[in-house]
C-alpha cells in the first residue's frame, strides 16, 4: 500500500509539469497584455512600458518560464501582478472559502442523492420514482448560473428568507482565523455570527450540490437496481434476511462503490463549477479569484491557481483509489 502511494504521488509530478507548461504558454497566447489591462484605455505607452519593466514582463517568455520553475522548486508561485502579493498566500487565503462550500455541497449531495437513489430503486416506476427522475434530470441539465439566479430571486428577493450574496452580514465583524466562515463565526462568539454564516451558505451550497445530488441519485438508482438482481442478493433473501437488511446491509455497500468514483470525479469537477457559483454569490474562493485573474491577465495567478486545481483533481482521484481499496478487498490485493 505504501509503495503504491509513493508510486502514485511521484507519477503526479510529470502531469503537473505538463499542466504548468501548457498553462504558461496558453495564458501568454491569450491576446492582451497584463500591463495594458491593468492601466486601462487611457494609458500611454511610456506608462505601460514602465509597468511592464516593473512586472518583469519585458523578459523573453522562456526566461520568464525558467524563473517561474526555479521559484516553484522553492515553493514560490510568484507574485500577483494586480495585488503585488505572493500568489501562494493569495490562494491559501481563498482556498478555505472554496473548500467550505464544496465539502458542504458534497455532504449534502451524498445525504440527499443516495437515499433518493435507493428509494427510487426499491420502488421502480412508482410515482416517487418518476418524480425523482424528473427532478434529477432537471438538476443535471440546468446550468448552475441559471439555478443560482433563480434561487437568488425566489429566496432572497421575493421571500426575503435568505441573503443574496456574501459569506456573512456586512454589519458583523469577524476576524479571519481559519478562513472557514462558519468556524471563524463560532470562534468569534459574536451574536448571530454562526447563524449568519449558515444562512449565507445555503444558496451557494444548494447550487453546487444540485448537480452532484442529481447525478448521484441517478447513478445509485441504476447500480442499486443492478445489484438487487444479483445472485447473492437472492441468496441473502433466501437465507431469510428481511428486505430491509438485504438492501441496507448488503446491496447498498456494493452499489456505493461505483458511486464513490462518481463523487470523487464530480467533486473535482465541482471545483471548476465553483467559478460561476462563487462569482454570482460573491463568494471569495479560488474559483472567483481565477475568474478575475483571467480577466486581468494576471499570469502568475492563473498559473498558480491552475496548478492548485490540477493538484486537487489528482489528489481527489488518488483518494478515490484508496477508498476503493479500503472498501473492496479485490482491489486491495491488486495494489501490492
Amino acid at each position, binding site marked *: 500500500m505504501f509503495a503504491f502511494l509513493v508510486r502514485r504521488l511521484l507519477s503526479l509530478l510529470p502531469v503537473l509539469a505538463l499542466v504548468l507548461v501548457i498553462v504558461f504558454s496558453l495564458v501568454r497566447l491569450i491576446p492582451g497584455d497584463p500591463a495594458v489591462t491593468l492601466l486601462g484605455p487611457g494609458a500611454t505607452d511610456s506608462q505601460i512600458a514602465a509597468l511592464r519593466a516593473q512586472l518583469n514582463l519585458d523578459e523573453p517568455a522562456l526566461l520568464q518560464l525558467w524563473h517561474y520553475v526555479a521559484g516553484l522548486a522553492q515553493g514560490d508561485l510568484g507574485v500577483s501582478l494586480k495585488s*503585488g502579493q505572493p500568489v501562494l498566500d493569495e490562494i491559501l*487565503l481563498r482556498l478555505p472559502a472554496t473548500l467550505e462550500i464544496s465539502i458542504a455541497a458534497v455532504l449534502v449531495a451524498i445525504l440527499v442523492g443516495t437515499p433518493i437513489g435507493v428509494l427510487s430503486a426499491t420502488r421502480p416506476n412508482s410515482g416517487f420514482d418518476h418524480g425523482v427522475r424528473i427532478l434529477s434530470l432537471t438538476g443535471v441539465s440546468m446550468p448552475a448560473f441559471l439555478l443560482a439566479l433563480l434561487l437568488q430571486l425566489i429566496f432572497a*428577493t421575493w421571500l426575503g428568507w435568505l441573503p443574496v450574496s456574501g459569506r456573512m452580514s456586512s454589519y458583523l465583524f469577524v476576524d479571519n482565523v481559519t478562513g472557514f466562515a462558519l468556524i471563524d463565526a463560532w470562534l468569534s462568539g459574536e451574536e448571530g455570527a454562526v447563524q449568519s454564516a449558515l444562512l449565507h451558505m445555503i444558496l451557494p451550497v444548494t447550487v453546487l450540490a444540485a448537480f452532484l445530488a442529481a447525478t448521484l441519485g441517478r447513478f445509485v438508482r441504476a447500480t442499486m437496481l443492478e445489484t438487487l438482481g444479483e445472485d447473492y442478493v437472492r441468496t441473502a433473501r433466501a437465507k431469510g434476511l428481511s428486505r430491509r437488511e438485504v438492501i441496507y446491509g448488503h446491496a447498498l455497500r456494493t452499489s456505493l462503490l461505483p458511486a464513490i468514483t462518481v463523487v470523487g470525479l464530480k467533486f473535482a469537477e465541482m471545483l471548476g463549477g465553483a467559478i460561476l457559483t462563487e462569482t454570482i454569490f460573491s463568494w471569495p474562493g479560488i474559483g472567483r479569484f481565477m475568474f478575475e485573474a483571467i480577466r486581468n491577465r494576471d499570469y502568475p495567478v492563473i498559473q498558480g491557481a491552475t496548478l492548485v486545481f490540477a493538484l486537487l483533481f489528482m489528489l481527489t482521484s488518488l483518494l478515490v483509489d484508496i477508498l476503493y481499496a479500503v472498501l473492496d478487498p479485490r482491489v486491495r490485493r491488486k495494489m501490492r
Partner: protein
Amino acid sequence: MKLTRRLFGAFSGAALGLATVPLSVQGALAQEASTLVIAVPSDPAGLEPGINKAEPIGSEIILNVFDTLVAWKAPDFAELEGRLATDWTVSEDGKTFDFTLRDGVTFHDGTPFNAEAVKFSIERTTEMNPYVEATLGLIESIETPSETEVVFTLSRPYPAFLSILAQPQSAIVSPAAVEKFGEDFANNPVGTGPFTFRAYQADTRVVLDANADYFRGAPKLERLIYTIIPEASTRRLELENGGVDIIQQAGQLSAVPSEEMAAFADNADIQILESPSQIIRQLEFNNSLTDGPFTDVRVRRAIAMAIDYDGLLSGVFDGTAERVYGPLTSNSWAFDPAVKDLAPKYDPEGAKALLKEAGVDPADLSVKLYSFQGALWGAVATFVQANLAEIGVDVEIAQTEFPSYRALHVAGEWQMALDGRQPWYNDPDAHVTIGYLSSLKDSAMTFRMPENSELDAKILEAQGEADMEARKALYSEIQKEIVEDVPGAYLFSPKLIVFARSNVDGLVVNSAPPLNEYWSVSKN
C-alpha cells in the same frame, strides 16, 4: 462505521431539512444606522498612493483614508480648496509652488503631519509609482523651510501640477507607518483622512472606521464598508434588499446602467444620484493617414453631420448621457461655448451634398468601424452604422477585445474607430495634450493627429501657461481649431451615476476624478 438505516435516515433528514426550512434572516441582525455599505465590482488595486494607478475603487478608498494638499471643491469641482495646505502661491514663471501647511494635524498612528511628511510622501510615490513619471516626475526639488511650509520646484512650468496634487497618487502618508510596515504598508495604510483603515479581506470587503479626530470634524458615519460583488445582477438585488446602501458604476468601459435606471426609477427605497462627467466618447478618424477619402476634411465633416446626436442620447442612453461638442466637456472650466456653434450638426441632406462637393460617391466609402466590446458599445456602433447608411455609407462594425483593440489602434491600422477618454486628473490638459499633440500620436489611443507645428506649439504653450486667463484663451483657440478640422465626431459624455438607498444623505457625486468622499455622508 456501519451504515444503518436509522443513521442514514437521520443524516439525510437533517440535510433535507437544512435545505428547505425557511429561516428568517433580516430580522436577526439589526441594521446599523451608522454603517454605510458600498458595493463595488472588484477589489481595489492597491490601497496606498505609492501603487495607485488611477484605478477608481482604490483611488476612492485612498481619498477617504488619506488627505491631499489640495482638493476640488464640491459641488462644482471647478475650483481647488486647501486640505492639508491652508494656502499656496505659484511663482510668476509657473515653476515654483509654495504651500503653507495646516498645523496640528496628526496621522492615524498619532505621529504629527508636517512638511517632512509631504516631502517624504511625494518623493516616495515619484520613485515607486511609474504612473506619475510624466507628472510628479517634473519635480526638481522639494524644500521644507519650516514644519509648516513646503516648496516644490518644477523643471518646467506646469499649471496642472495643482490638479495632480489633488490626485490619490499625491496623498500624504505617515512616514512612521511606512517605516514600521515596509512592504506591507499597502495592507496597513495610515493617513490623516476622515476614515482610518480597519481591515481588508481580499475578494470580500474593505472596512474603514471613522477618525474621530479628523481635522475637519469627525465624520457622521462610524463605519464605511466597501463590499466586493463582481456580478451586476447580484449588486442590484443587494441594493433592492437593503443589503448594501450604495452601488457605483465603476470602470471606464462599463455600460450605462439603463436597465437598472428603469428598474430603480419607481422604487421609493432607492434614489438615483447623477452628475455630469468629464468623460468623452467619440468616433475618431485616423488623422495620420496620408491617402484615402478621410484625408479630405469635407468627407470627415459629412460623416460627423450624418450622426443624429440627440437621437443617440434619447434612443440609446435614455437620459444617462449628455451632449459633447468638442475636445472638452461643457462642464470643464476651459470649455468655450462658441464651440457649440462650430461643431457639425445633424444634417443628412447637407452631409450628402458635402460628399458630392468633395467628389466622393458614398458607395465607395465602405469602411470598418472599430469599437470596444460590450453591449453599450455595440449599441452605439449600430446607431452610427444606421446613421451612415442613411447617407449611403456602408459601415462594417468590428468589436474587438480591449487589449488587442489597443494594440491595433496604437499601430494605426484603422480608418474609423470608437474611442473615449476619462481624464485622470481635473484639467483640460488631460484631454487635449494626450489626444491631439502630434508627437504623442503613437503613444496611446489618440486621434493620431498629423504634424501641425502651429497647433502643437499652442497645445504645449497652454500646458505650461501659468496665467489662468491666458491659459483659458489658449484652450479656447485650440478647441475652435480642432473642431473646425473635424478629427472625429464627438458622440456623448456619460453621466456618473450612483444608486443609493433613500436614507443615504449628503453624498455629492464628484464629476471629476478623484471620486466620492464620505466624510459628510450620513444615514437617516
